[in-house]
């Protein structure tokens, strides 16, 4: 597969890893936050850790859209789906994410709610057109990558004057989350592997302020293993040189300014939410999007007067700390015993991008495997 296989080449990876081994200074640690779940996934799926020197450590970040969605938002969607005769459309990734009290969308569906898994935002639109007598709600989640498609379908729905289609908007923004992590200082990191596909939309410039303010090296890194290793090398070089700038390893897809058309579309449909709660990070100002007043007819929160739902934290689950880069999944007491991919207790065990799921599926017995 063009533009995939080249970046999964083991020889290239080993050569780049060799440079890393050569260039790291043995008397210090390199704590690098892979911001995205996509990086986490690649690191485990391809066994990248095995190629790294001892003192290069990956720290997981909050860049998994499923993981950072607070349980209350899922609970709100479940209540909506169970209280009225609506069709709730959602990406499959969300189905098993724990809401309050051991609940989840897929449990609600098993109980009888009409919840449909879709592959594309346009599928939700098609379902609305095929069921004119029913209200169809698209449970939209995701960072800036997934937001433009949602914006596109809202604009189409408006053009078609659909009256049975709304969006429960949960789109969040990457830079504010990054700024929050850096501001807190909790994670004590030395550099950041920056988002790849988010950056195709928002562009590499988007991180400039944040990096400058917190004097943090950042390399926008593709999701293929060679991308990750090369980006790691670039980060180590910045750290060794004591500089901090936004570097772009993923030049084949990311430009400085991003996708202008997509950004304009997002801007037309969405506006900033004053505050939004993130799982693990708490309420962050200006960190998420809401549907603009002009498109209020397509806002499920308004149409259905959805009240905010607060849920209590899952006892023992340290997802919040994992998402802030403070703890590793295997530090969680529930990991692998009470909490497994079959019965996830926290969101990080659900998505294959979640740090806990990645640890469980690929890394759990790493010690034994490699010994």
């Amino acid at each position, binding site marked *: 597969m063009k533009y995939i296989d080249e970046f999964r080449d083991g020889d290239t990876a080993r*050569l780049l890893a060799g440079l890393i081994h050569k260039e790291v200074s043995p008397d210090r640690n390199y704590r690098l936050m892979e911001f995205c779940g996509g990086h986490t996934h690649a690191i485990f799926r391809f066994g990248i850790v095995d190629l790294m020197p001892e003192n290069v450590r990956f720290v997981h970040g909050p860049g998994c*859209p499923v993981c950072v969605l607070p349980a209350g938002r899922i609970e709100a969607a479940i209540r909506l789906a169970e209280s009225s005769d609506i069709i709730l459309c959602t990406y499959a990734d969300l189905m098993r994410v724990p809401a309050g009290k051991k609940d989840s969308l897929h449990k609600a569906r098993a109980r009888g709610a009409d919840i449909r898994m879709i592959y594309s935002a*346009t599928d939700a639109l098609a379902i609305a057109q095929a069921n004119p007598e029913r209200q169809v709600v698209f449970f939209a989640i995701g960072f800036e990558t997934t937001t433009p498609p949602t914006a596109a379908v809202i604009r189409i729905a408006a053009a078609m004057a659909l009256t049975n289609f709304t969006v429960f908007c949960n789109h969040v923004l990457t830079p504010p989350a990054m700024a929050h992590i850096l501001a807190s200082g909790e994670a004590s990191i030395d550099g950041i592997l920056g988002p790849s*596909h988010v950056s195709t939309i928002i562009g590499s410039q988007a991180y400039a302020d944040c990096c400058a303010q917190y004097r943090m090296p950042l390399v926008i890194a593709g999701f293929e293993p060679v991308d990750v290793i090369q980006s790691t090398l670039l980060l180590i070089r910045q750290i060794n040189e004591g500089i901090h700038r936004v570097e772009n390893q993923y030049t*084949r897809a990311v430009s400085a300014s991003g996708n202008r058309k997509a950004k304009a579309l997002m801007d037309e449909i969405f506006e900033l939410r004053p505050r939004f709660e993130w799982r693990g990070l708490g309420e962050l100002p200006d960190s998420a999007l809401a549907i603009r007043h002009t498109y209020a007819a397509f806002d499920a929160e308004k149409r259905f007067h959805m009240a905010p739902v607060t849920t209590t934290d899952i006892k023992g689950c340290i997802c919040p700390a994992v998402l802030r880069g403070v703890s590793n999944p295997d530090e969680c007491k529930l990991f692998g015993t009470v909490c497994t991919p079959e019965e996830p207790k926290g969101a990080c065990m659900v998505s294959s991008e979640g740090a806990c799921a990645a640890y469980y599926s690929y890394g759990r017995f790493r010690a034994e495997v490699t010994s």
Partner: protein
Amino acid sequence: MCLAVPARVEALDEATAMAVVSLDGIRKEVSTQLLEQVAIGDYVLIHVGFALERIDPVEAAKTLALFAELRAMDGNA
């Protein structure tokens, strides 16, 4: 996050802003409405049924050239 895969544009319908892309023999209809320009033969990143961005072949070649150089150096070493 954000699963996106590069696929080649095989057919374009400007009226509907839809394209057929292919990935090793798999063909899929996607929307091109997020792209300013796109041509048959382009590789585009596909995410939730939308083409997010074109892959820049020149930039990709540069990166790959760097790797090739590395391998060449290693071969010589």
